[in-house]
């Protein structure tokens, strides 16, 4: 996909009603272009799923929004300004990775790091306010009962709930999720998904959700951004997740079937094996 760059570059980013806004965005590493000409506005409270095979630039998009990766061309705004590292407007939930069992850290400390873990100093001021915020975030994810337990000894699902609390404790306008359900069992997937959904409904937080498996979040998704090998499509789930659109994106015959309340993608080649795995059907 080529970039009509000049037209996009000349156009200023509009009044920041959007929580996330990309204009003519291009990301290249050397010769390789992950995506270009990407225009995307995510409204407050909107839930966008970012799908695509490995190496299609899903995580790189998150890194751009986090301010960790500069665009090769185009503009990006998060909560109305250029993203920068440690922005209080952004919450981030990574994929679940086991924490060290001997880590001297309690659940409430992990959540508290989301509030001020990037700050300098020992933070003696405002401890009462901080404690109240952490307690509220813990309560919101149902984590009060293990708030004082060592994080490394909690289950994967409990750890991931704490990461949700950690991402939300700073009251962000945008929530960036990078495969947050990976390696969780179905019950915990549903639990974490419900927390994220509840948050965006109550607080109007925009959600950008990178995943290789849309089914656990299918009922929540407002729009899909599907990236394949430099090509992409943005639109409502029903418009993007079709045989014709995915066939065009992948450049090969892809069939999308709806089986009860699930989508089954068949034939998206070996490149996208993870997307069409059927083990949780």
């Amino acid at each position, binding site marked *: 996909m080529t970039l009509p760059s000049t037209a996009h570059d000349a156009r200023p980013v509009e009044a920041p009603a959007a929580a996330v806004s990309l204009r003519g965005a291009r990301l290249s590493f050397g010769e390789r272009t992950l995506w270009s000409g990407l225009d995307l506005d995510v409204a407050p409270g909107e839930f966008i799923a970012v799908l695509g095979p490995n190496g299609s630039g899903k995580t790189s998009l998150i890194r751009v929004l986090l301010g960790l990766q500069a665009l090769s061309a185009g503009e990006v705004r998060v909560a109305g300004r250029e993203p920068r*590292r440690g922005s209080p407007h952004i919450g981030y939930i990574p994929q679940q990775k086991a924490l*060290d069992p001997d880590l*001297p850290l309690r659940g409430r400390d992990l959540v508290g*790091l989301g509030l001020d873990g*990037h700050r300098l100093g*020992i933070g003696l001021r405002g401890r009462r306010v901080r404690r109240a915020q952490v307690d509220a975030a813990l309560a919101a994810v149902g984590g009060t009962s293990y708030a004082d337990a060592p994080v490394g000894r909690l289950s994967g699902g409990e750890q991931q709930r704490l990461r949700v609390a950690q991402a939300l404790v700073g009251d962000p306008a945008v929530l960036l999720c990078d495969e947050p359900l990976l390696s969780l069992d179905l019950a915990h997937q549903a639990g974490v998904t419900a927390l994220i959904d509840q948050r965006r409904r109550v607080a109007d937080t925009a959600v950008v959700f990178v995943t290789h498996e849309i089914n656990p979040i299918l009922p929540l998704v407002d729009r899909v951004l599907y990236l394949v090998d430099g090509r992409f499509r943005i639109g409502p789930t029903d418009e993007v997740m079709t045989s014709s659109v995915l066939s065009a994106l992948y450049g090969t015959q892809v069939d999308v079937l709806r089986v009860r309340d699930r989508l089954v993608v068949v034939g998206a080649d070996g490149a996208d094996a993870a997307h069409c795995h059927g083990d949780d059907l």
Partner: protein
Amino acid sequence: MNKLISFENVGELLALPFVQSALIACAVLGLVAGLLAPLIVARGMSFAVHGTAELAFTGGAAALLTGIGVQIGAVVGAVVAGLVFGVLGLRQRERDSVIGVVLAFGLGLGVLMLALYHGRASNKFGLLTGSIVSIDATNLWVLGGVAVVVVTVVAVFHRQLLFASADPEVATARGVPVRMLSLLFAVLIGLVTALAVPVVGAILVLSVMIAPGAAAARVTANPLLATALAVAFAELALVGGTVLSLAPGLPVSGYVAAIAFACYVGCRVVARYRGRSPARA
């Protein structure tokens, strides 16, 4: 056995200036070692500390041979080691093999240099096992200066260090300079290790740099409490070990290591007695 534990003439011995300066040095060392220990445990850097200590030994041996101050040689060796480990092996699996290779080389080099050294034999032995006389040789002002630097740096970067240790990925996303902190922490370890080498010797540095933190992590997951406990254990081991070693006239390091080990075993017992380890603190 009565030769091992004895308090004969301890009162008079404590009045000696070199004993007093040794005790002051131990107290300062206990504070800085205890401060770093929980973070070392949290970062899984025990082996790095061991490697750093061996290279402090190499630096000390080189300094003996060339007639520079041993302390200066140890500091240079340890800080260089810390930086090398920090740069080469940020990923833990890779780090272990890097440390193993560099450690063995440094130790061999040190042994070679000691063999070429024809000065006092106690100087040689002191590097490996520490001695109370070599504490006297320690410039208390240097020790105090380094302690001020270490305490200040830890106070300023404590939350960032904790965040980067617990969850480097999210910490990076939140704008914590994880890579820089890794190098900074390696330098801190180098400085404190170099100060600990004359007291407990290169071989037993782990007993003051690791054991207090590992013991504390057994009984609490509260990072602040863990730090306070680690400082207490380190002080107990260093100051207590020095006092116990006076009357028998045996090496300080054996007593320090024994007390540190007792603290660790005690904490494990407490944790087990509580039914889970580490307990919900």
